[in-house]
């Protein structure tokens, strides 16, 4: 399959400035509360812990006192050429034609986990446990509330970061209600809305980051901050695993060369650290 270019040129993407990220976890917490992600009693098994935004701590492999570490927040890359979309047998995931978000339809997923195997970023997580008893626990124990805009999942299905797609829907609804219709008799449908203003649609993680390390918007729109950041910090920008050809839409910025070198594999590279 070739790279899928969204129609109308809108390409939602993210720029994460690793020079600013402190690893506080606010993005991940915001994501979890926004998207009704439950908490198990024991979440130390990271191979089954569901976090759509995952924080990796990566070190430069040097001995004390030259050790440096960086925190890399990793949402779903919403790849331009996703490895996961073509492999789903039940068409439970697609690449949106407008905007380019890789959608995950959890009510259609049969849980075969082929997409989980295909994704090199481990962005996809599977519900190994049944969430429903946990949601009950969630509300009771955490005196918490569930976000009514995001569907809760069931056992045995795959879930992943959706670039807060429900917020895009809300932004479109907002544009719809704010748009003055010249002729009331003319039908005006919400599906006609494609672009939304930058401030109307921001992901929960970008909104929550106290260091403003996460920027979200339309990569192709020169008026959006993500586009400008990539231009300004061109030398520091990189993506994860570019060599594979997945065309990720999440860019990272780092002024440190050793961090940029962590993004990919380089044959016989001296900078390679032990995995």
């Amino acid at each position: 399959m070739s790279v899928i270019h969204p129609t109308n040129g809108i390409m939602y993407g993210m720029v994460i400035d690793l020079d600013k990220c402190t690893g506080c976890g606010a993005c991940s917490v915001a994501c979890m509360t926004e998207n009704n992600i439950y908490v198990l009693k024991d979440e130390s098994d990271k191979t089954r812990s569901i976090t759509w935004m995952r924080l990796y701590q990566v070190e430069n492999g040097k001995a004390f006192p030259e050790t440096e570490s960086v925190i890399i927040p990793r949402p779903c890359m919403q790849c331009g050429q996703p490895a996961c979309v073509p492999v789903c047998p039940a068409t439970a995931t697609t690449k949106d034609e407008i905007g380019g978000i890789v959608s995950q339809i959890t009510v259609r997923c049969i849980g075969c986990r082929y997409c989980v195997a295909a994704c090199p970023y481990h962005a996809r997580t599977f519900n190994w446990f049944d969430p429903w008893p946990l949601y009950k626990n969630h509300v009771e124990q955490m005196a918490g509330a569930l976000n009514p805009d995001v569907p809760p999942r069931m056992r045995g299905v795959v879930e992943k970061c959706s670039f807060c797609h429900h917020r895009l829907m809300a932004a479109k609804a907002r544009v719809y209600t704010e748009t003055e219709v010249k002729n009331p008799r003319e039908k005006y449908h919400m599906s006609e809305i494609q672009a939304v203003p930058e401030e109307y649609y921001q992901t929960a993680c970008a909104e929550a980051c106290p260091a403003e390390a996460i920027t979200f918007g339309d990569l192709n729109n020169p008026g959006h901050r993500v586009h400008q950041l990539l231009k300004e910090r061109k030398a520091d920008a990189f993506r994860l695993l570019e060599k594979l050809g997945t065309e990720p839409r999440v860019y990272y910025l780092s002024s440190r060369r050793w961090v940029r070198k962590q993004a990919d594999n380089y044959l016989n590279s001296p900078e390679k650290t032990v995995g």
Partner: protein
Amino acid sequence: MNLDAKLIPDGVQRTSTLNFGLTLLPWLGLLGFGLIGALLCFGLGLNQTAMNDYFAFGLWIVFDLAVIALGAGAFFTGFLLYIIGRKELKSIINLAVIIGFICYSAAVVMLLIDIGQPLRGWFIFWHANVHSMLTEVSFCITVYLMVLIIEYIPIILENRKLNQVREFHFFAHNLHEVMFIFAAVGTFLSFFHQGSLGGMFGVMFARPFAARPMFFIWPTTFALFIMSAIAAGPCFTLLIATLLEKIGRKKLVRAEAKQTLANIAGKLLAVYIFFKIIDTIAWIYGPAQNAGLALGDFYRDGPYGQWLLFLELGLMGILPAILLNIPAARRNTLWLTLACLLTTSGIVLNRFVMVVVTLAIPVLPFEQFIGYLPSWQEWAISLAVIGYGGLIISLSYRYLPVFPDEKALNA
């Protein structure tokens, strides 16, 4: 004393009913154990397994791939008999079909337990994604299972008692007349699903261990899986036949039939190993290098070492290929059995490597290498497949005319 003497085929010796009942116990035990595992998985969810987000596929998928490859003897023997016209294979075709039926029906049940939402399994057919190899696999396997059932039915209807019913006799006889159609359909379907199972891994372009060069929509693993299946399938059929001969202490299959299968399997195996070695080299300098990974990056000390490669291609590949191509070795039961064991083990190892090692190898440089050991629930269900096979073969061997040449060979 045979209480069920009227059900046993005419002119053959079978053990007493009591003995037979006792021999069924271990198979039933395994099935019972598997049932417990299955109920736990259905009731509590897939956290009962040792799989996780890194090991999305585990023991069951390895087992599925292995049994489907080993069950390839059914379609290939049918192809050789009904399409190519190798009449001597009539001696072994029934056994091959039964093995195929066992393998494919077990695979379908195991897949149903493996998916997170078994009740939604039909979505693959209703919301099929034409781009996915797994869609092709599901369609083909389901249809082929129906073909196998159709091929198994005449054998069942030829049971002494059932055959006395005129309609059954008529039906079975006529089905035999048109069996070549089903053999052709079965061959066609099998080529595609054997290939697609390999295709499933070759298309994962973001997983450098599995990714392969593409020919249009087909990765090289598509062809390799077909080749290895048609080499290993007949070998597995031969192994089961030899096993039954040893246990029953009688000849069951004509020597010509065995030699035909062994000879063809040997040639296919040699061709497969040749292409597999070329493919491995092409992969090292192609997808692997393009992803920035060297051969050493894919192997670790211990159970995931480079010795896996040498074992699969050398001891379990080149060696049995040589043995099967030496007529004297083929005709010797011991060497033939050894060669068949090595071949089938090699193909099972290949399936294991394509599933487990693919997932164990991290792609992101800062990701960890994760190990995986199946839980007892996974073992229970996998071993139940063996119990199921043992049960079906035991019942078929006793009550159905599986071996048309048995009477003549033991006269």
